[in-house]
């Protein structure tokens, strides 16, 4: 019989369509995996942002990916707010993957977000903390805009959500 642990491992191959270096597991959105006796799999996802257009796409990607495993039965995917997603659910591997995409990873333990907190976000290119936040809104809902005063590069950050 398949185990939830096995499914979680396999789901590392499903990537966030907006940041293709990070898997949905490392992003922290896979909040439940149930496997029945006849290998039917039920996966629960929690939205990163209520308005994230990639959410439905990720549901389909999970279904499609697990659907290719012959030993698995029916695959169902559900989105639920029961676990509230925060950026603290992103794994350490996830942080590395975000950097690889050229984005600054979110600061940890941000239950109280302030504008000051977004200042001095380390630059993903030169790691300097001499940076300024230009806007808390970027090209996708999860990104903010920054400028590095050291290497004179504009960069984007994955913004902390508490």
């Amino acid at each position: 019989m398949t185990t939830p642990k096995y499914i979680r491992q396999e789901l590392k191959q499903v990537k966030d369509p907006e940041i293709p270096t990070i898997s949905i597991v490392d992003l922290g959105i896979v909040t439940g995996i149930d496997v029945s006796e006849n290998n039917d799999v039920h996966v629960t996802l929690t939205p990163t942002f209520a308005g994230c257009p990639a959410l439905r796409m990720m549901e389909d990607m999970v279904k499609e990916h697990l659907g290719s495993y012959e030993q698995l039965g029916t695959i169902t995917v559900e989105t639920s707010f029961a676990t509230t997603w925060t950026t603290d659910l992103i794994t350490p591997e996830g942080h590395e993957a975000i950097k690889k995409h050229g984005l600054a990873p979110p600061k940890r333990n941000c239950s109280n977000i302030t504008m000051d907190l977004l200042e001095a976000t380390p630059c993903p290119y030169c790691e300097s903390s001499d940076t300024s936040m230009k806007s808390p809104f970027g090209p996708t809902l999860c990104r903010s805009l920054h400028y590095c005063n050291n290497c004179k590069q504009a960069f984007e950050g994955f913004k902390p959500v508490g």
Partner: protein
Amino acid sequence: MDSIAALKELLYKIADDQLIIGHRNSEWTGLGPILEEDIAFSSMAQDKIGQSEHIYNLLHQLGEADADTVAFTRNAPQFHCSQLVELPIGGYDFSLIRHFLFDFAEYLRFEALKTSAYQPLAQVAKKFFGEIKYHTMHANTWVHQLGHGNGESNGKMQESLNYAWNYALGMFEPGPAEDVLITENIFIGETALREQWLEVITPLLEKSNLVIPSQSEWAPIYGGRKGEHTEHLQPLLSEMTEVYTIDPTADW
């Protein structure tokens, strides 16, 4: 009124406010005064409309029609949004002031709803609360900056605040079942929310060199929650539903 009917009413006004302000925010897409602001209002539009969809889904679970049907097939008198959110975007000064007044109210509304006895609502409130925090920070930064900019920017912000004020008070129009929502611990009620809101925004506006109209001039503009709207809502709905009306099965 039973608690389900009271809950539905609460959900409709929240979702309708979000959908309509979301649509208004999206009208800045491509027109923002600077690129970052264009992106900010577009992002907030996406947040609001996404949030409204989840609230409409909660209504669907309570037996109402599905989200698209509810969003795209009703006419103005069937909407429960406050009149504040339906007003045209006007100049950037008005859009920023409305954004400030609306988002602080919404932030506090969801903060209160995080502990709602209605679990599905408490769950989404926790999520939305973290998102709306960014909206309030954005609003306060700009209100503060322009309040302190120069005579012209301060004057424009003050004028917009004066104009928006009674509409903003209209957000807190009490519903017919406030007592049910309060007794059942579903929601703290509009009167308590308004008190919290005043407590939060008063010092922020003071710090921004802006003056709240004197209390003798307060005359909340009610009606939106009961389906009474300004002449601005129906044209917005006609535009928003144009594609759906031509082809209800359209997809992309």
